[in-house]
């Protein structure tokens, strides 16, 4: 079985082809292409511009992916696209492309939940059987565990997503958006050494990140060369606090919050494995912290690299193909997309544990 997956729920458009040779064999990635829309520093990506970007790229990416995969159109079994959640305009432009090729090639459509795509991709790559899943990206922060054919959400953010928090923090400090803000924050954090007090808000298995942004606004005004010396933030030894220190403190604080809520969910369901998925999941420091926590619980952490961690077409193709295998098809008239689509709304018919 071969599927093509189209993903475009945020600022990345990804086209992937995957083959499932046999249920007992691992899936084979045939092609995995992606193009990212980067907004200028100090700005986020807006729906309209992002949608234009996706429309500009979708045709050549599909052509290139099919060519690279070396498959004939008639070998493709289904066309999978992201139904949601995500930004509406980009979602819509990619859904339109999916409908077009479905009609052009006469293939069935499968609408896929973006979060489930991340989870299934992570499970396939890492071979983690039944882990607690931490899904952290620009738009989502969820702690998920599987139970009775659903991916149930145990903990999540009470306000904004972790990636959104990092992006906006980076914007406040005028950190560039290329390749992505989180990457640049991570690189800067490697050179930070002073821990600045940043709000730490965990409630049960949920976390809150908005207070951090308010704190960041204040902190950003008290660092840097152009701030008078007596007003600049210093550590106990009188050294000035730098941009690097702020990035370091941000990562140490928010990742500790994530690890804590994940650990609480693991303690609650009695799991020892943890899988980190989503764009923020490619952060090495987060993976390291999660690994230390999992080790102390006698388990291990599974993380994927940026090819599969960051939004891509393969994950949509993979999850869509699993769903298609259970007989699920999205009719043309139902092939809409939506900004709101909970992870636990999807019936996981392909797992029976």
């Amino acid at each position, binding site marked *: 079985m071969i599927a093509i997956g189209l993903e475009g729920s945020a600022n990345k458009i990804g086209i992937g082809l995957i083959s499932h040779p046999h249920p007992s064999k*691992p899936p084979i990635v045939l092609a995995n292409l992606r193009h990212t829309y*980067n907004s200028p520093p100090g700005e986020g990506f807006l729906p309209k511009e992002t949608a234009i970007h996706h429309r500009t790229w979708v045709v050549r990416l599909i052509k290139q992916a099919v060519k690279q995969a070396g498959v004939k159109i008639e070998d493709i079994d289904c066309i999978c696209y992201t139904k949601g959640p995500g930004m509406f305009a980009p979602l819509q432009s990619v859904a339109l492309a999916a409908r077009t090729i479905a009609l052009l090639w006469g293939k069935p459509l499968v609408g896929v939940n973006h979060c489930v795509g991340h989870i299934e991709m992570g499970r396939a790559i890492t071979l983690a059987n039944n882990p607690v899943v931490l899904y952290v990206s620009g738009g*989502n922060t969820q702690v998920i565990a599987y139970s009775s054919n659903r991916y149930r959400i145990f903990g999540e953010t009470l306000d904004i997503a972790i990636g959104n928090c990092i992006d906006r923090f980076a914007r406040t400090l005028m950190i560039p958006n290329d390749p992505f803000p989180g990457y640049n924050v991570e690189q800067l954090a490697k050179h930070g050494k002073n821990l600045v007090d940043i709000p730490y808000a*965990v409630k049960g298995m949920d976390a809150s990140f908005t207070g951090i942004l308010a704190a960041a606004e204040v902190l950003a005004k008290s660092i840097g060369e152009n701030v008078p010396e007596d007003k600049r933030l210093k550590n106990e030894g009188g050294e000035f606090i730098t941009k690097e220190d702020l990035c370091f403190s941000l990562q140490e604080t928010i990742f500790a919050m994530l690890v804590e809520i994940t650990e609480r969910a693991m303690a609650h*369901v009695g799991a020892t494995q943890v899988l980190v998925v989503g764009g923020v999941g490619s952060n090495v420091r987060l993976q390291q912290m999660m690994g230390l926590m999992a080790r102390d619980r006698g388990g291990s952490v599974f993380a994927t690299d940026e090819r599969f961690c960051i939004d891509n077409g393969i994950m949509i193709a993979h999850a869509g193909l699993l769903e298609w295998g259970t007989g699920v098809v999205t009719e043309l008239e139902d092939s809409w997309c939506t900004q709101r689509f909970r992870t636990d709304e999807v019936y996981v018919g392909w797992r029976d544990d």
Partner: protein
Amino acid sequence: MAHSVAEPVPTIAPLSPPSPPPTDRPLHTLPAPFTTSNLQLLAQGAEALVYKTTFLTPNTPCVVKYRPPKPYRHPILDKRLTKARLLAEARVLVRAGREGVSVPRVLGADWEGGWLVLSWVGGGSVRQVLDGWAERVKRGEQKAEQALMDGEILDLMRRIGRCVGRLHDIGISHGDLTTSNIMLQSPSQESGPQPPLGGEITLIDFGLASHITPNSADEEGAVDLYVLERAFAATHPAAEPLFQEVLKAYSESWKGAKSVMKRLEDVRLRGRKRSMLG
């Protein structure tokens, strides 16, 4: 947008798992006066290792709640959180006990060492009760509707609701109110496989509890109920209707309950708001 080529992410090789990280567990050493002898590990919670041991006399059973330094956390942040949480927990427990809510008594504490000694709570957790109940429903011994009519379990739900209500009434929010943290204490102090449904309800694990200020009362109370609701829903899909009984009893238990219930609707919506972006 002006880049001319797509980022190449070509991967034709089959997917293979990464090498697993090392899993050798370090042994936590408890600070004095505790030694590993005479200690029995009860649970490894998210934050604390919970041991059963004796305190002061050989036949006074107690619980030692030890918060080891978290290796993943920055040492300064770790110390700050450990101290703040341990002290908050001890203060809340003392206050709740004084106000007549059944909670473990505080026998000793050391916030530098990270340990807290609490009196022993026998019996079992509501989670065990619900698991047993859900298992029976699943096996078909009891139809779901019949099981719901079961007076004993409904009475238990009502008492849970009233107990949580009383806690909020005296100005304390639990902060991590899951079914594992609600115990049914049997008079015999023995823990069997199934705790007696009629046992006294005792709330444990006040690690994230806090004193409520008047202007955050609704919010904190509603988040408690929301966490409990999700613990019911997430662990036992079949037990969701039981939670309605908890809410009913809660809403009749104290004067502030009505506005907390109203806020709960907001909290549910806000929790659900997170389905917006991808």
